[in-house]
């Protein structure tokens, strides 16, 4: 084991404190002037790929935010330690906070440009970044009020204060912040999901171990316990944490894990290890897309997804990056808010590529909406997303029923892809215009796929 790996492991409590992350974001959006600059830069980002890290506003923010964080958190952390840690991680966290806000605003603008999606997929609060500052402030205040208050208790207190209705309203914003600010932790979690998705030999180990142990007199077989502890171990390995610090991991992914209304005991690990959807779906989307693009190694880096883009496809690639990261958030939010299942933009892109590959369609092709929805269901089934969705929704998972339900929701995600300038997917009618694409409600029943146009944009996501 190399020394470098060793040093990465441990309870890095300041680095992985989600309240410190929240404070980086809160400080950035708390000034109206800065927010105006961010809104304009978000538009530039989705049109040219420039995220604005060369701006004076960013440099000034980066310099100021560190002392804000130290002042805010010195009541609960050792001040010297805090200064030392913030001087090490401050620039990187400031950069992430900047990316969080720019991409969040860009996604809001994309949805409003598309004329669809925001109302159906996300709550109204998603479009109001101004209100987020006060919620983040409450979270920070609650955490810094007194030393030693556990993170889950802080979240519980805030939820209690604002009421449970707030949970789904604010969830998408907090999920997004958490995913990007703690990206290296989540990259570990994505790695874990990748392992689970592959159903590798490692997962068979529990059974083998129980068989071996059964040779020992007095051993009481408990496969479930063995499995759970082994999955925890794998998660710790993937997240680069020592096994005993698994609850530190919980703190780092606090909003993703605890901000769930549908989970009865979100603090427990069992559901997260086996039934988590949000981060699992993200891992699946990334690995699926990359496999069709022919990447030799998987790139599960969230920061790369939201990094500045360049080249002629920079604008649409930036838009697509945001849509890919938004897709699992859409999926999770709709489950939280309405117990239903939706098709996300990432599902459509994956399905389009799957169809192209399976039928060796190297060039342009036309495919009916129904065929795409069927392909998405097939993909969900193969990647185990469908089985997980069943646990949380009341939707009938009978293919026929789900197809008719999903077709309508398919249109909203398609509108997001088409109306945000991602070229290569065009609506067309072969028989009769059964569906209508908002906002102009153009009729269509099929998609005309121009892979030659779509692939460079998709490749641009990871450039």
């Amino acid at each position, binding site marked *: 084991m190399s020394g470098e790996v060793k040093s990465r492991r441990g309870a890095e409590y300041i680095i992985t404190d989600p309240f410190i992350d929240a404070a980086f974001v809160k400080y950035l959006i708390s000034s*109206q*002037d800065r927010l*105006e*600059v*961010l*809104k*304009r*830069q978000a*538009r*530039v980002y989705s049109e*040219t790929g*420039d995220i*604005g890290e*060369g*701006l*004076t*506003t960013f*440099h*000034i923010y980066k*310099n100021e935010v560190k002392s804000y964080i130290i002042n805010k958190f010195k009541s609960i952390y050792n001040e010297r330690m805090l200064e030392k840690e913030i001087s090490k991680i401050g620039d990187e966290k400031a950069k992430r906070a900047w990316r969080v806000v720019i991409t969040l605003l860009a996604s809001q603008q994309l949805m409003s440009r598309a004329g669809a999606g925001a109302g159906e997929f996300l709550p109204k609060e998603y479009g109001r970044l101004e209100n987020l500052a006060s919620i983040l402030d409450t979270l920070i205040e609650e955490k810094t009020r007194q030393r030693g208050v556990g993170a889950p208790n802080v979240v519980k207190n805030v939820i209690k204060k604002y009421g449970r209705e707030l949970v789904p309203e604010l969830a998408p914003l907090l999920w997004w912040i958490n995913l990007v600010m703690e990206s290296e932790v989540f990259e570990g979690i994505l790695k874990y999901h990748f392992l689970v998705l592959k159903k590798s030999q490692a997962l068979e180990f529990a059974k083998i171990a129980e068989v071996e142990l059964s040779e020992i007199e007095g051993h009481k077989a408990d496969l479930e316990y063995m499995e759970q502890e082994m999955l925890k171990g794998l998660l710790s390995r993937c997240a680069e944490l020592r096994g005993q610090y698994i609850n530190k991991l919980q703190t780092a992914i606090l909003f993703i894990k605890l901000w769930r209304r549908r989970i009865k005991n979100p603090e427990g690990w069992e559901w997260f290890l086996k039934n988590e959807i949000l981060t699992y779906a993200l891992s699946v989307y990334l690995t699926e897309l990359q496999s069709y693009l022919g990447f030799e190694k998987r790139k599960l880096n969230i920061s790369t997804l939201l990094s500045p883009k*360049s080249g002629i496809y*920079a604008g649409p690639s930036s838009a697509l990056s945001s849509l890919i990261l938004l897709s699992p958030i859409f999926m999770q939010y709709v489950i939280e808010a309405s117990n239903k299942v939706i098709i996300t933009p990432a599902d459509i892109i994956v399905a389009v590529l799957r169809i192209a590959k399976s039928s060796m369609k190297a060039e342009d092709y036309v495919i009916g909406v129904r065929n795409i929805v069927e392909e998405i269901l097939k993909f969900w089934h193969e990647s185990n997303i469908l089985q997980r969705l069943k646990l949380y929704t009341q939707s009938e998972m009978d293919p026929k029923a789900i197809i008719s339900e999903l077709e309508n929701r398919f249109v909203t995600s398609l509108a997001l892809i088409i109306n945000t300038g991602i070229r290569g997917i065009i609506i067309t009618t072969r028989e009769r215009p059964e569906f209508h694409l908002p*906002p*102009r*409600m153009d009729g269509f029943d099929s998609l005309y796929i121009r892979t030659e146009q779509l692939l460079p944009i998709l490749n641009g996501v990871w450039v």
Partner: protein
Amino acid sequence: MRGMSAPSNIAVFRRFVEETTGRLSFGQIERRFEKALDENPVFAEINKSGALNKNIIVILGGRGCGKTLLLRYIKYKLINENWQFEYVNGADVAKLRPDEAKKRLEGIMSKYLSEDLMKDPNYRIAIAIDDVAEVNEIASEQLKNIIAHVKIYEGKFKLILAAQSESQRTMPLLSNTLPLSPFAETLFGEKPEQAILDSFKSSYIKRKSISLFRGAALINLDAYWSSLRSLSKIEDLAEVIVKIVNFYIKNAFTDYNDGKAEIIDKINKVKHGLAFLALSSLPKISSQADNIIIEYKGGEDRALNGLGIAELISKLFADSELELQAEEAEEFYRFLKDVKTDINVNEVEEVLLKACPESGYMTPLKDSPISSIIPVQILQQPSQQQAKAGAGRKRGPKANIIEVRIRSGGLESLRYIIMSSLRTDPRGYVASESVKRIGEFVKLGVPAESEQRFLIVFIPTCEEIKNLYKAVGYDHRKRIGRDILPICLDGLSDIEKAFIRFVKSETIHPTILRSAYKLVIGTLLLNLRDNFGMPSLAYLMLPYVA
């Protein structure tokens, strides 16, 4: 009072024009303007275009552009062609409760568009809804239904909709209600939303006031005036002013006798001067997001539209200072039109710096260090080279900068326009120093769209745009047209060049110097266009509708 002398004729005329500039109802306008409607130059152009033959006529324009007067003209034309004409005041409908407003619109439909009436071969009805954007806000579905009837009763039902361009309610009418109405495609073409919005957004810039669609017409009255907003068009504008005066005279007096010649004489003497003063008004930007320019008469400001010109005419007979200004401007124009001169990029820069304080919201920062608007030292990475370069280097290069104070939506913010140019040497080669300077600005992060800093690059001719690409570099080429804005000077006419030369040297009579500065901002800027023909500098410097 019969047989009064000429001054009383002037008094009658002045009173008539003054009353016209007040807020008049459709009924009042109808009574005041009964004669010579065909002679009004604005109406003549609309009539010539064939727009009035369309089934749906959408009229847009800023405050004071004459929408209601145009409705009066349309009524006159249609009644002559045996149409019935019904005027609906949208502002009155919008005052009702939403359910009452809906009922009111349904009532209009059942009263004028019933099947029984439509069976009558001689029955033809035109319904004009003034201030329709207000109605749309509370009863868009009913409005869509009325629009659908235009197609159902094609040839027998004509709908005229008038809306104020600056109203925030107008965009939903154009982007949702009209294009999403049943049969929108048959009225506006295959992509109705795009067709309507493109036509509206580009009409002012392209100076094209009338767009004809399959079954509809869109008249942007502001675009009519924009076609005259140029120093090269001053002769045409002067003739329009004379025609408007004639139109007023014919409606102000019971008979058009010799006594009125005095009014015409006075106008004729200073018609170019009046046109010059009309051009020294500022058009406004009505929507920050879409850069829609409109003509707008607000408060005491001058305006280049029906109301603005009416005010100029009435003041000419009442305000000796304005009369003096008109005379000086007339003289200046007569002198200016024969001057032939060439100008260089520096002169344009200088004129803009001199003119901008006249706006009241722009400040020139001449030869200022860049560090006065951005903390250059933050952006520069500390390096040995920089340490050696000394303190002067930390302030970065200097430039002429214009600070624009923007008030929009209750918020105030600052925008900076940093001016630079690609100079050419006497042999016509671009000076490498100016190329380097632009490169340095870009490297230092001087232009930044989101921080509202724009680098304007004056280029002698559009052909030389390639030098800008060279100066900016491959990585930043996408920013050309966003925060690096080329302005080509080859679009300027001789008279504009001569005007720039005289404003720069301030050899203009002090009485009209301030008007000349305003003309630079309000009119000249619109002719300073980029390589795609867009007035990008005007977008940055014109005021927003308050």
